[in-house]
């Protein structure tokens, strides 16, 4: 079975030889031009016969690895198969005298991939998936083996072959494509469209190609970076900026989850009180936090710009402006991180059963809630990464997860703003410190020794000498 493509190719190459020989033996002297063309076709067909074994080797290798083809290495790996035996030539039909020679016809085979092997269809499909490949004609348009466009003949394009070469002596009114073969545009040959080869060359030997000449070699097929960017027909659909890999997204989700856990534990360790206050503000004023967060995010850019412009007015401000901008960005990152960690902790508290929480110390319960909440958000992204290759459902899930995350971050940022506003209002006396909506102000203030001052010893009169205690 594996020799089938080679045998098929050899059969048609022999047919091409026969066609050329038939024309060569034509006694009609008026067909001198056709005789010359037939001889040329015979010569080309013999060359293609010698090349057919290479086609067999490629086809075998392609059956093993249809999605990524390294043609050069295929040449190195494949064993040289025995040449298929040529079928005997049928007897020549006598040519009636006085009948002009037939017009130059394509000397190549006219078969379609349906008659070829699945390996050849895989080759076409593999090339079709290469992002650098142009729009290829349908599989039905591909012929197997070499094809010659005779001088003087005009063939409507596209002309496409696999495992063969296109020799253009006439005109192709359209595109030409050759996979595992060359396109040779001889003197007088004309391709009015584009010429494309995969693992082959477009050779201009005096001919003309009006359109683009494009060749792919080396590894051909879909690239690793564009696996998920192909449309239903395997065409390159998105630019480099839109490339997406499920495995890469999975690793990013894991990495971000780990990063958030590290940041969260750091916040819990070094800024426990602010975290507690923000969590409290989030629990008490979720709606207000969401709106404040939205306003804060929208206002950040213009506010930063205004500050930088205001600083740039003065000479000293020009020097200070970059540091101010950097400080604002650092502050924004800190607010976002604090807010998100607070949201994650709140989410974790909701997810973990209160009975088991009650068995832990307050800090242990806080840590458990934090880990649970961050893991929940990370898990959403991991799930989104795993299903993202299914274009419709994947995109929908990714969109939902992204919206949830954006809402969480917005609410977290808003909770930080709410907390700070509450602190300011308490400091100005606008809000009583005992208000149910107040935030524990002592958590934000600089710690002071509140455990009391050592009492002074009360002076007592000296005891008289000789007294007994």
């Amino acid at each position, binding site marked *: 079975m594996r020799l089938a493509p080679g045998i098929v190719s050899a059969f048609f190459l022999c047919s091409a030889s026969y066609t050329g020989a038939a024309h060569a033996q034509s006694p009609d002297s008026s067909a001198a031009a056709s005789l010359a063309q037939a001889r040329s076709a015979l010569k080309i067909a013999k060359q293609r016969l010698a090349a057919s074994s290479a086609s067999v080797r490629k086809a075998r290798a392609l059956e093993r690895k249809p999605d*990524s083809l*390294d043609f050069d*290495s295929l040449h190195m790996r494949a064993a040289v198969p025995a040449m298929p035996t040529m079928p005997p030539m049928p007897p020549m039909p006598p040519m009636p005298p006085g009948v002009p020679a037939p017009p130059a016809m394509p000397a190549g085979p006219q078969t379609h991939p349906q008659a070829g092997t699945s390996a050849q269809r895989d080759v076409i499909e593999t090339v079709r998936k290469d*992002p*650098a490949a142009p729009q290829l004609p349908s599989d039905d348009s591909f012929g197997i083996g070499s094809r010659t466009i005779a001088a003087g003949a005009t063939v409507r394009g596209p002309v496409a072959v696999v495992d063969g070469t296109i020799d253009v002596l006439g005109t192709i009114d359209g595109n030409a494509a050759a996979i595992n073969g060359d396109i040779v545009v001889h003197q007088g040959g004309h391709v009015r469209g584009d010429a494309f080869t995969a693992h082959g060359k477009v050779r*201009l030997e005096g001919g*003309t*190609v*009006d*359109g*683009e*000449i*494009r*060749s*792919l*070699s*080396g*590894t*051909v*097929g879909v*690239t*690793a*970076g*564009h696996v998920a960017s192909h449309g239903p027909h395997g065409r*390159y659909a998105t*630019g*480099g*900026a839109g*490339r997406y890999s499920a*495995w*890469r997204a999975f*690793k*990013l989700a894991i*990495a*971000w989850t780990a*990063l958030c856990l*590290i*940041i969260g534990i*750091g*916040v819990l360790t*070094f*800024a426990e*009180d*602010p975290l507690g206050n923000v969590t409290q503000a989030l629990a008490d004023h979720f709606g207000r936090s969401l709106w404040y967060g939205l306003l804060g995010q929208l206002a950040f850019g213009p506010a930063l710009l205004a500050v930088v412009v205001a600083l740039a007015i003065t000479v000293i401000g020009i020097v200070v402006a970059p540091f101010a901008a950097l400080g604002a960005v*650092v*502050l924004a*990152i*800190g607010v976002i*991180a*604090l807010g998100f960690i607070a949201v994650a902790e709140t989410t974790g508290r909701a997810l973990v059963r209160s009975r088991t929480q009650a068995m832990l110390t307050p800090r242990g319960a806080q840590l458990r809630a934090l880990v649970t909440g961050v893991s929940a958000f990370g898990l959403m992204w991991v799930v989104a990464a795993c299903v993202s290759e299914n274009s419709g459902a994947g995109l929908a899930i990714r969109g939902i997860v992204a919206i949830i995350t954006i809402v969480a971050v917005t609410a977290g940022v808003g909770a930080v703003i709410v907390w700070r506003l509450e602190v300011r209002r308490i400091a100005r006396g606008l809000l009583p410190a005992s208000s149910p909506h107040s935030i524990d102000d002592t958590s*934000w*203030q*600089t*710690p002071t020794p509140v455990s009391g001052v050592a009492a002074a010893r009360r002076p007592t009169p000296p005891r008289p000498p000789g007294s007994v205690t």
Partner: protein
Amino acid sequence: MTRPLAITAWMCATLIALISHPALAQNEGADSSKDGGGERVLDVMRQQHDSVPLNVHVGYGGGELMVRPAPVGVLFAAHCVYGDESDVPKISFDPGAHRLNIGGEGGNGNVSIHMRTASFSGSANSGDMRLELSPYVPLDLKLEFGAAEATLQLGGLAIRQLEVATGASSTMLRFDSPNEMAMQNLSLHLGAASFRATGLANARAREIEVNAGAGSADLDFGGRWTDDIRLDLSAAVGAIHVHVPADVAVISDVKAVLGDVDSDVAHNPANAAHHLAIYGKATMGSIEVDRSVGGSD
């Protein structure tokens, strides 16, 4: 730990983590490229059918780039070698507008080649490209590089306008032979780049504009002088070194704002056939002019 110290430590830790995280992702990309597929080669060319001016825009992210004249009968030919993880070079030609655009999205040139990497980081996923352009059609060239190592052999071409913008690249611009036509404009916008130009007189540009960001530019005005040249320099933080032939008179009006200007061309030749007028300012960089042309005729 006191509250301000804790807040500061937490913010710094957050910032460091966020900054280092993309690097982690970048390494992931680089690692996957190692065990990715093999080398890919793309050749694209067009035959020259007329002499209509060609507008060429090349946007090149990282890797090696060479631009040079094409053989007879070829309008342009691009030979690209890239890896499995790289962005596929996009080479598009608009026959109507006679525009070639090489590279990624958004090129407005006629011929454009973009080989921008996914991460814009340069070498890890970069490729190599050789671009040949016809010397028989007027060219409007716009070349933009990221972290590329570029060799531009533009001598012998017919360039009407040339604009080169570099990022953190190492660029060599050569005019070994005269431009086939007078160049209307030559602009060099250099980022944190190492840039060297030789045979600039062969460019046949009456006005040359050089903006050096944080890189170093070495401008050699060797070659065949056919006209006077006006050179506008701006050295923000970078250093510009101008080499002038001994037989060319120099008119220098370069100001140092916070930078440094050093001119070693006080004595002009008596019967100088051509003049180089240098204008500009060294904001925080340096501009140096001397008569040490290496490749003058």
